[in-house]
């Protein structure tokens, strides 16, 4: 008898800025919709361990998607993307989960993402509070300049470099096989994608002046950051949380920049209470 994972994958077509994208996603569970966003240069496989969690699956419909140009979401056929260097903008990135929520018929989903996904969580809280009931930003900060560098997309530097740097962003206490898996995924991204994603991470995302405008009475904001994350440090996340009235923050000890994939068991210990609070809020509102 074959042993299968519980998550199942399929494609959905979404149109953003007049361009049709074929977006891959994997899902498991029933209940409150929970959209899961991967990091820059990664893909939805980073959530594979969380997707398998039976307790969460009993309460949440977890959906981990690959952004266009990432993982199994190959570039669109309707534009000559090969004539321009890939670059991820805030406007495009925000439209992906918003459009997915609409196309999949998700009712006030929860959004959770790490790194660019963490930054995106707070941008969504600011600009799309009507779409999401709560956002959970992992490794989020108001502003993280300095990462949009040519060395991330250079003909003389292979994807091994990215994988190695990402390995060093994780906690040395996380299980080595899972850190290796996380780095492996980085070695597989299309060469221009990581640098292009860092345009959003380091240039287009800037909440220093606007974080205070987020209304947590409309969308709850939770921030959690790994203590070993030197790209978006605990101090940076705490500072962002302090700018957002009503937001909460917690440092995740023993975790780094990729909590959901480098040590999912430890990560789930931190995120379960947050998701239960979201769930309790939903029950109270109904």
């Amino acid at each position, binding site marked *: 008898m074959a042993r299968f994972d519980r998550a199942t994958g399929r494609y959905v077509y979404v149109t953003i800025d007049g361009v049709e994208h074929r977006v891959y996603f994997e899902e498991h569970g029933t209940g409150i919709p929970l959209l899961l966003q991967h990091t820059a240069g990664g893909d939805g496989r980073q959530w594979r361990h969380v997707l398998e969690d039976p307790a969460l699956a009993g309460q949440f419909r977890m959906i981990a998607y690959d952004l266009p140009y990432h993982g199994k979401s190959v570039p669109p056929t309707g534009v000559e993307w090969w004539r321009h260097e890939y670059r991820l903008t805030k406007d495009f990135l925000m439209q992906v989960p918003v459009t997915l929520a609409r196309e999949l018929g998700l009712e006030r989903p929860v959004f959770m993402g790490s790194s660019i996904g963490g930054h995106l969580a707070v941008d969504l809280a600011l600009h799309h509070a009507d779409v999401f009931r709560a956002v959970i930003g992992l490794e989020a900060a108001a502003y993280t300049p300095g990462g949009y560098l040519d060395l991330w997309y250079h003909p003389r*530097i292979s994807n091994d470099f990215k994988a190695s740097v990402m390995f*060093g962003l994780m906690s040395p206490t996380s299980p080595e096989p899972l850190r290796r898996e996380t780095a492996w995924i980085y070695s597989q991204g299309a060469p221009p994608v990581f640098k292009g994603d860092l345009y959003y991470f380091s240039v287009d995302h800037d909440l220093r002046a606007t974080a205070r405008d987020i209304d947590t009475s409309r969308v709850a904001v939770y921030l959690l950051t790994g203590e070993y994350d030197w790209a978006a440090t605990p101090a940076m996340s705490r500072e962002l949380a302090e700018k957002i009235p009503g937001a909460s923050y917690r440092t995740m000890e023993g975790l780094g920049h990729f909590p959901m994939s480098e040590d999912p068991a430890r990560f789930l210990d931190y995120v379960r209470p947050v998701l239960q609070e979201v769930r309790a809020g939903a029950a109270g509102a109904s």
Partner: protein
Amino acid sequence: MRQIPWPRVMERANGDGEFRIAARFWRTVLRFDLGPESVRFMVDDGVIRTIAPSGPGADCTVSVAGSPESWERLLAAVPLWQDLLGAVLRADFVVTAADPEAFYAYYPAVRRLVDLVREESRS
């Protein structure tokens, strides 16, 4: 500053599968400046041929320089100090290379070498 058994580091690196893969085809002279002390690694075709003390300005292809305190934190892998590049981007270490792309192309080998120095300095 902790004692680092450099002959043992060379033996470990040359017998380490991860380092040997990351260092394939590598030819370089790498210098670590550990505060006032410096050591040079002569690397040929991915194999470390010698590790020897040198002056801080000794000829090299690339140097990695940090204070004794920075090296201590890096080798202890305390939070935010578990990775050399993170420390370089914070300006806690300085990398000097005539050919920076060549250094970053072999960063996986350098990172693994630091791991092995860390392990051997604890033993």
